[in-house]
Every structure is written in C-alpha cells, then in structure tokens.
C-alpha cells in the first residue's frame, strides 16, 4: 500500500497536470477572438506561481518542464524558451518560498508581479538576440500585468478549491523533515 503522504503528493501533481491541460485546451479552442485588442492573462503561469509558493513539492521542476515544453510547441511559441522562462521563474520563487511564508500577501503579490515582468524582459531580450520575431513589447508587458492582476484569483482558487495552503511551522514531509 502506498503511504498516504506519497499518494497525496502524486494526486496533487496529477491535479496540477489536469488543470493545466484544461486551461491549455480552453486557450486552443477557437472562440472567434480576432486579432487586435488586448491580450488576456496567462492563467497557466499564474496558477503555477501560486502553487509553487504554496507547496513547491507538488510542482517539481521536472513537472514544470514536462508541462511547459509541450505547451510551447502547442501554443506556437519558440520551443524551449517559454519552458526555460517558467522554470527559472519557479526556481526563483521556490528559493524564496520559505521567505514568502513570513510575508503578507501583498508583498508576495508584488514579488510575483516583478518576477513576471523580469521574465518578459528576459524573453524579449533573448528573442531579440536571436533575431526572432518578437511580440510587441507594450502588449507583452500588459499581458504580464494582467497575469499579475489575476494572481490573487489563482491564489484563491488554489487555497479554497484545491485546499493548498502554505505549510504551517511544525509541518513535516514524508521523510519527517521539516518543510
């Protein structure tokens, strides 16, 4: 029999995968939005950030790459670059996860917003260096701001629907180490 903590970890990983799948399909479905207008927020990225800052163990780095590399291909972006950006963002947030536990939510929100903007700048820079067609800088920044704006919603969803909270001070993981 699988011990309950491992089962819980893996079922949350599966849940994460399923959520991303649903969001990705929702983006792929032709809803008839024509060109022009403002780009919508990147819900998948907001959800990923919220999960990493709640329970990093449920969104390990390999899962991030396994999810975002095919997404790059399916959403017709530069393959590898988007996954790399998300991986670096999540690793950065993961390092600061212990710190963010002590922070009020507003500071966590600001942290995520800044990280998303830096990621946009980095991707624009890399695309420019490789002479690749870049999305317009203004729209890309607006998109990052929208993503940051829906971040609280992603957190609410994570906390109240997925029941993921930040680890409380005394909590231990499967091997008995402190989280």
């Amino acid at each position: 029999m699988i011990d309950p903590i491992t089962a819980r970890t893996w079922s949350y990983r599966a849940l994460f995968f399923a959520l991303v799948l649903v969001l990705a399909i929702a983006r792929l479905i032709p809803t008839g939005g024509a060109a022009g207008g403002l780009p919508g927020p990147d819900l998948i990225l907001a959800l990923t950030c919220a999960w990493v800052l709640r329970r990093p163990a449920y969104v390990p780095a390999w899962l991030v790459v396994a999810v975002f590399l095919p997404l790059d291909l399916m959403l017709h972006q530069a393959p590898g670059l988007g996954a790399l950006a998300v991986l670096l963002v999540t690793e950065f947030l993961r390092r600061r996860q212990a710190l963010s536990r002590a922070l009020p939510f507003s500071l966590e929100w600001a942290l995520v917003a800044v990280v998303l903007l830096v990621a946009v700048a980095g991707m624009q820079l890399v695309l420019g260096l490789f002479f690749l067609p870049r999305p317009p800088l203004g729209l890309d920044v607006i998109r990052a701001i929208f993503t940051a704006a829906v971040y609280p919603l992603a957190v609410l969803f994570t906390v109240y629907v997925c029941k993921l909270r930040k680890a409380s001070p005394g909590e231990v993981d499967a091997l008995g180490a402190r989280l």
Partner: protein
Amino acid sequence: MARDRQDIDYVSPLRRIGVGLLIVLCVGVFLLWRIDSPRVERVRSELLDAVVPRFEWMSVPVRRMGEMVADFQSYQRLHAQNRDLRRELQQMKAWREAAVQLEQQNAKLLALNNVRLDPKLTSVSGVVIADSGSPFRQSILINVGARDGVIDGWATMDGLGLVGRISGVGDNTARVLLLTDTTSRIPVTILPSGQRAMLTGDNTAAPLLGFLDDVALIQPGDRVVSSGDGGLFPPGLLVGQVAQGADQRLRVRLSADYERLEFLRVLRSHAAEVIDGEGDLLIPPQLPPAPTLPDPDEAEDQSADASGDG
C-alpha cells in the same frame, strides 16, 4: 540556510544538478529549433496532429457558450441595432436592384462568351478546430492535412475572401497562417489603379499595405485582390477593401469574416510555370528548298527592293 548545515543534505545538490539538466534541456531544444527549424516544426505539427483532434468534442459546447454570451450582449444595444438595420435594409434594397441588373447582364455576357472559370482551381474544405492559443500569433488549425493532399503554401479562403495560407501540415491537421499574423506577407493588386503592393500583417484586424508606388492613386474602398506574384497564390482572389486607419496609414479591411472562421476552403494551387529558356530568335519556319527555280517576276522585285534601299 541553517537546516542545511545541521545535518548532511544529500537532496539539494542532486536537485541542483537536476534543475541544471532541465535548463540545459530547454536551452538545447531552443537552439535545436533555431538551427534546424523545419524538423522541430514538423515535430510541432505532429504533436498538434496527435493531441488537438482528441479535444474537438470540447470545443462545441464552449463555442456555443461564447455565441450565447455574444447574443446576450447584443440585446443591450437592441435599439441602436434596430435603427441601423432598417437603414441598412434600405441600402440593401438599392443594392439588390443593382445586383439583379448585373446578374442579367452577367448571364448574357457569359452566354455570349461561354466563359469557364479556371478548372484547375479545385478546393478542399475543412473545419476550424483550434486557435493558435497565443495572443501574438494569428493562426488556426483546420482538420484537413497531408491525408487530403494539402501542401504547404496553398491559399485558404472562407466563403468570400482570402483568409491566409497553409503553413505547417500534419497528417490530419494543417495550420493556416492568417493574413493578420506579423509574419504574413502577401503580394496584392489594388484594383481600379492596378498597383502592386505588399499586404503585411501586424497583429491587428486590418493588415497594412506596404511598398506602394503611388499613394495618390489609391482611395479608401478600392478592391484588393491577390496578385499572384511570386507564384504563391492564384491571382485574383478577393482580399478586401482599402481603408485608412486611425494612424493615417493605408490598411486593408479583410473580406473574410475573421470573427467567425468556421469552414475554410483550401485552394489547390498548381506550381506556376517558370520560364527558364533565354528566348530563341523568332525565325519563320524553314520550308524545304523549293524544287523549282523562282519565277522571274519575284527576282525582279527583289532587285528593285535592293536598288531602292541603296
């Protein structure tokens, strides 16, 4: 971190190596794509080919929902819409009269001429199954592909106008790069003046007209059709009408209904003929040497010509 120093930590160095490997993997994929783009693009279209058709059933209810929301929104401007519609109807009546007259005229001319439309231009019809999913890429996926004989570069139309061209073919799906995408460049002709121009997508609903010879000859409302330059598209496909944007640049209002792309026709183009000889001298066909001598009259004429020249 204090915890790391207390007990020997085996996990975090391993983790760091793992993350490093993942970073190398992502960079590798990116560089591979940059170096050998066609191969990675083929992987991409095969992935889409495998994944997207499985979720087609989901798209129907979501699309219906979107239509319902749009319908509901349209109730809010019912009054204004009603007035507009009445005025439009009035215009339509005038147009219908014109159309009927033109139809009669056309029927007469056709009978007179016995014109047939180019029989080479047959088409495959497909249904739109997915969007590009990214706000910066304007492309759609349709459910016909290499199995139906679709080839990269073919023109795609909806019922009325040009929509884009095939760019990436999977076995059962094909990607259509829309005219509004930033990488789309189409040679066009602007009709009454016959000027050639380049239609350049810029991620807005109305693509830009570039490389124009003489802007003064062009007026908003002129028809824009594909020119067939470069052998990319068959010439004469309707693209749209010239319009002047808010930024005073000439744009094209597309005839195809980009808000509701559902069924598309992929036109089977055939490779344009290429003239590759240098062109020979035009020499009258050589007759076999005449068995009889030329008669004296002709000889006299020739000598007269020669003396006239001299």
